[in-house]
């Protein structure tokens, strides 16, 4: 008995983690998957109902708007975060004075919650006392900036706040990537007469492929999961113009008693994330094994 215990101690110590994740992650996802195939309303029902919830989901105007918003948001969020992140990383890499201070400033939003960020941006973007008033008081009398309450434009306010929060993160990833490149490579290129621009464009940035990949995965992941920021900034409004899948899911589950439908929307999100993450994990693992 004692021998057995000693021999299996490592596995016993690891059991809580495996058990908890097995139950609370895999078990729960399977449960949600099952429920998405039932006609559950307020309470879960366990008789199978086929793909009805998924048909309902893709016929729902609100869901289609959510998906549309997610695509717009993800595209802009990705582009701005990566472009700003790269520019900042390259510029900071030029032996800048006070680099530490600047880096701290670019990255501090990552330490804040999306609720805090959303609250701050909501105040800044509100048309009556925020940015709009500031410009009018400065003499631009016809200046209007009402994106926050404008159906067409409200989604872009979420992009502004989201980019503000996450661009510094991309900067940190790229700066770490650039710093890990051997100095000799850059020196050799310079001796061959390459200008600074060529060095970055032709040599360093192509070497940053893995960092691009990582940033892409992380940012897409953040954007599919975006929930807090929308709640704090627009609550999905005006109307339902800024609703997104995560918001759709919680509203269906906890406010509208559409448990089956919300499970179906959750599974769609799950599949979207899996489509991005599984290739990523696969390539990471292969790289690690190749080492």
């Amino acid at each position: 008995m004692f021998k057995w215990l000693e021999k299996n101690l490592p596995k016993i110590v690891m059991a809580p983690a495996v058990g908890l994740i097995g139950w609370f992650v895999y078990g729960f996802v399977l449960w949600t998957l099952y429920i998405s195939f039932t006609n559950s309303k307020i309470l879960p029902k366990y008789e199978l109902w086929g793909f009805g919830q998924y048909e309902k989901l893709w016929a729902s105007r609100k869901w289609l708007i959510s998906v549309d918003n997610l695509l717009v948001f993800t595209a802009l969020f990705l582009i701005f975060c990566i472009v700003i992140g790269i520019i900042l990383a390259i510029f900071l890499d030029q032996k800048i004075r006070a680099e530490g201070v600047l880096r701290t400033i670019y990255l501090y939003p990552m330490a804040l919650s999306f609720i805090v960020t959303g609250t701050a941006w909501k105040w800044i973007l509100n048309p009556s006392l925020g940015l709009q008033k500031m410009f009018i008081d400065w003499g631009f009398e016809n200046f209007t900036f009402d994106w926050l309450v404008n159906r067409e434009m409200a989604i872009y306010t979420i992009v502004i706040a989201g980019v503000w929060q996450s661009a510094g993160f991309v900067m940190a990833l790229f700066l770490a990537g650039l710093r890990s490149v051997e100095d000799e490579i850059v020196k050799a290129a310079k001796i061959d007469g390459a200008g600074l621009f060529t060095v970055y464009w032709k040599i360093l940035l192509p070497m940053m492929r893995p960092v691009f990949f990582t940033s892409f995965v992380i940012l897409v992941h953040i954007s599919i999961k975006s929930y807090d920021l929308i709640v704090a900034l627009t609550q999905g409004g005006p109307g339902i113009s800024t609703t997104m899948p995560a918001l759709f899911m919680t509203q269906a589950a906890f406010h509208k008693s559409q448990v089956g439908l919300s499970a179906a929307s959750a599974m769609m999100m799950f599949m979207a994330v899996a489509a991005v993450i599984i290739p990523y994990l696969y390539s990471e693992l292969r790289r690690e094994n190749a080492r």
Partner: protein
Amino acid sequence: MQDNLQRSSYEQLEQKSKYTNMFLRWFLYFVLILFASYFIFPLYVMVVTSLKTMEEIRQGTLLTWPSSLNFDSWLVAWGGRGYGAGDTFLRPYFWNSIKMVVPAVFFSTFIGAMTGYVLTKWRFKGDQWVFLFLLFGCFIPFQAILLPMARTLGALGISNSVVGLVLVHTVYGIPFTTLFFRNYYVSVPTELVKAARIDGAGFFKIFFKILLPISAPIIVVTVIWQFTQIWNDFLFGSTFSFGEAAPIQVALNNMVLSSTSVKEYNVDMASAIIAGIPTLIVYVLAGKYFIRGLTSGAVKG
């Protein structure tokens, strides 16, 4: 003559490149400072707004400096106005968050350290798969577990309680903490452990005598990561708790959204700062470790 000409044109060229260099330098700093102001702007606005009276807010612009340092809205945000019912303020929720964060960070870090230790120093057949199995937990969208979690917490009798949130945050922190410790222990030479085993040291002795003493950096990284994640969480907090058991982010959101009477932006901003200050302090004091957590949590995958 010929020689002179050549030299002067060379000097000119050098002069010119010096000017373009200087121009580039200035341009560089200009862009960097421009972005710095974009990033600092909301924080500045938050702080200034929280120090103004509503009268000042209506008269001035976002950028106007307050006429006096007036911490009234901070006091209201923290402790309320004292008129009883309907008076919402952050103090109790701040403590809820503390009570939630401390045990959740401790448990998830401990479990992660142990699991990371087994996965690297007591390797067995298929341990790679176990790691992958745990790692996938980092990435699932939590929407896919919200419904069963709500029912489970109800069945356990800990829905709408700090205890329930501790459980939730511990469980969903494990994939990250395991990842951190596993990646750290992988680089610790296994010979150390083998030698200790030959000397007769057991499982726990090796952990506490050999690995733990050199784990300080990764413990700091993990604790900071978990603290920031849990303190800033809104999804779990808002789904699994309401009313008095709510953590601070939920309370902040409720305070800002409550549409009773006139909006008091100064109190809103003071509340937002209070909710953000613990993680900001950690970031400023231990930024290095914070960034390491961010990048290793992300890059190493």
